[in-house]
């Protein structure tokens, strides 16, 4: 129903009066719930530790890039995410539960999970920025909160170092495996090349002197350049996506070079068709291919070996717990005051809500109810003149009844407020 704005206050007042029993019931109910909540609300004590996590890498930035890739240096946000993963991961929480005696070796996985979940629910991690992280633990017992926080800090420090060490070890193992694979490939190619040499095939290059052998025929030069480009491309692909301009440029150059080589080979084949031995030529081509492949693999292998050494250094750094600077900025403390929602807040919110909610309900009823209450609205909608609105004419008995009702209302409201104030006072003096 559309209600003129200027008539809303008087209409609201009228409806509040008409539905006074509903308003009183709401008022009393909300207060009973609120007072009950303020009494039953457990006190919550919170102890927290502020830690500073910084990457203290002894590697120079270039080396860091090589070890971890271009995006390898963790940002503050990444450190927070890492700390969060570690803190709320099963290891830390189960270790903490074990330390606190919540679970033991004989506990089932489900029990461990439940205990870890309960502890995680009471723990919060806040990113304060610039590498500062706040770990908080809350409990109804202040001492328990404090002791648990201390243990949690210890467990967390150990776990985060362990996490870093595991990550670097995994990285090293992966690079090492790749390097071994390339080593095996190079060995096989060298063996094949040696066998071709022994069969008298002229080889245009060698592994060791591929880059320095001069002079080479044009075709061999092109093949050597092609090998160089392919090596470069392989190196670039380790750091960049295929869409990167450097990768695209290298790929285009390789393509052009391959085209040139193909033309030259065709010409060579045509000129040699008169009398040369086809078998010898095939062997020569194969030797060239092996040489090229050997060059590419050697370059990649050398790069992997460099990376492997760096990864090994990183593993050793983390093993010595030097990879992260982990500094406790603020020690866990024994909380003296409860934190969170206090009973006084609950009581104040309750009183506020017990006044505002009934008003809100009445306003909603006015706007949702389509029944006619205002003369101007009625005249506008029906196009029939409204001669007036007659207010309720009170009889003396009705006034007396209303006064009795008001007395009851005063008594109930007064009693509720009295109980609220009494509860608040008792909580403030910590009677319960």
């Amino acid at each position: 129903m559309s209600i003129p704005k200027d008539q809303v206050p008087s209409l609201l007042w009228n409806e509040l009066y008409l539905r006074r029993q509903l308003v009183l019931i709401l008022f009393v109910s909300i207060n009973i719930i609120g007072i009950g909540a303020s009494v039953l609300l457990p006190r919550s004590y919170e102890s927290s530790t502020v830690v500073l996590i910084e990457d203290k890498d002894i590697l120079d930035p270039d080396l860091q890039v090589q070890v971890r890739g271009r995006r390898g240096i963790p940002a503050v946000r990444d450190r927070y995410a890492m700390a969060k993963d570690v803190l709320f991961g099963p290891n830390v929480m189960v270790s903490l539960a074990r330390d606190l005696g919540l679970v033991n070796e004989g506990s089932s996985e489900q029990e461990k999970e439940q205990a870890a979940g309960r502890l995680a629910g009471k723990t919060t991690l806040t990113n304060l920025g610039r590498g500062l992280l706040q770990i908080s633990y809350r409990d109804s017992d202040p001492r328990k909160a404090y002791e648990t926080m201390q243990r949690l800090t210890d467990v967390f420090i150990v776990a985060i170092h362990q996490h870093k060490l595991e990550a670097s070890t995994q990285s090293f193992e992966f690079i090492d495996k790749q390097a071994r694979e390339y080593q095996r490939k190079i060995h096989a190619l060298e063996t094949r090349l040696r066998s071709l040499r022994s069969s008298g095939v002229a080889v245009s290059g060698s592994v060791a002197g591929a880059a320095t052998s001069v002079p080479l025929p044009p075709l061999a030069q092109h093949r050597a350049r092609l090998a160089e480009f392919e090596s470069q491309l392989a190196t670039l692909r380790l750091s960049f996506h295929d869409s990167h301009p450097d990768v695209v440029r290298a790929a285009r150059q390789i393509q052009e070079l391959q085209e040139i080589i193909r033309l030259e080979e065709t010409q060579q084949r045509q000129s040699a068709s008169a009398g040369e031995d086809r078998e010898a030529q095939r062997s020569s081509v194969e030797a060239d291919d092996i040489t090229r492949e050997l060059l590419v693999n050697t370059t990649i292998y050398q790069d992997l070996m460099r990376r492997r050494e760096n990864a090994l250094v990183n593993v050793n750094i983390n093993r010595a717990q030097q990879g992260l600077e982990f500094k406790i900025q603020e020690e866990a403390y024994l909380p003296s005051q409860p934190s969170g929602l206090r009973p006084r807040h609950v009581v104040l919110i309750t009183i506020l809500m017990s006044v505002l909610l009934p008003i809100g309900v009445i306003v909603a009823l006015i706007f949702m109810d389509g029944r006619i209450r205002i003369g101007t609205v009625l005249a506008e909608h029906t196009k029939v003149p409204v001669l007036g609105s007659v207010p309720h004419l009170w009889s003396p008995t009705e006034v007396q009844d209303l006064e009795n009702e008001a007395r009851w209302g005063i008594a109930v409201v007064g009693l509720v407020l009295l109980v609220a104030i009494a509860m608040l006072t008792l909580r403030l003096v910590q009677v319960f």
Partner: protein
Amino acid sequence: MSKIEKALRKAQRESKALVQKPGPPLLAGGSGEAAASKHRDDGRSVSFGASSTIALMDQPETMLPSERALNKIILANADDSPARRALRSIRTRITQRVGTGGSVILATSVRPAGGTTFMAINLGAAIGLDSAKTSLLIDCNIRRPSLHGLVRGKRKKGLTDYLTGGCDEISEIICSTGIERLRVITAGEQTDHGSEYFTGERMHRLIWSVRERYPDRQVILDCPPLQTPDTQILLQHCDYVLVVIPYGMVTESQIRSSLRVVDPNKLLGLVINDEPHVPVMNWRSLLKSTVARLFSWRR
């Protein structure tokens, strides 16, 4: 009985004695109402003015302010309640539309218990506030009659008694109310035949008589809701229709559908009834009395 009430009763007795003292032959036969009608029934075109008609009225014991308050009837004076102000305003607007008298206004509602009787009585009382105007209430709500409570003095026959031939003179069914310049015709004793009462010739004659005989008088029919057959029949007899809308009880669509049966030319207007109004209360004294009662309860 308070001193004021005693004084009022004394004043009434004195004024009654003054009216009856000259002892004109017209008043000898009974009430002033009967005398006035008898005079006209002689066939002479004698017409009383409002003041002379009113002067001839037998004014019974006036209803005391406390009784009026108890019956939810606005007071003649010394009352400035919002309801009284609103009713006076409505009366004025109606008078502007219908003139000084001689018209029949049908008061009805769009739902049962919509406040039609309250509105009819108080409208009659508000008209009576003007000493030059009178009104006649007819209780047409035969199934649920309610105006008989207003009757002062000897209980007379009512509307249905007249319509069924139980009496022939209209003057026999017009009763005094104790409210200044307000008369009433009650529903009567016969209430068995339902709507057949209003379709007969006698109903036509009654309406014609009250309209023609008392040109200074506003006739108000207190009717059941618009949807009832009785009211729909009575719509043909009336000059104007006043529809009472109970506050916050009916929707716009209900009102629209109810108004379809009313001739737009007869529709006087709508009145919203029983708008909430918080009476003035002395909260300090209430608070004190509450505390006092709580303590006395403890003892």
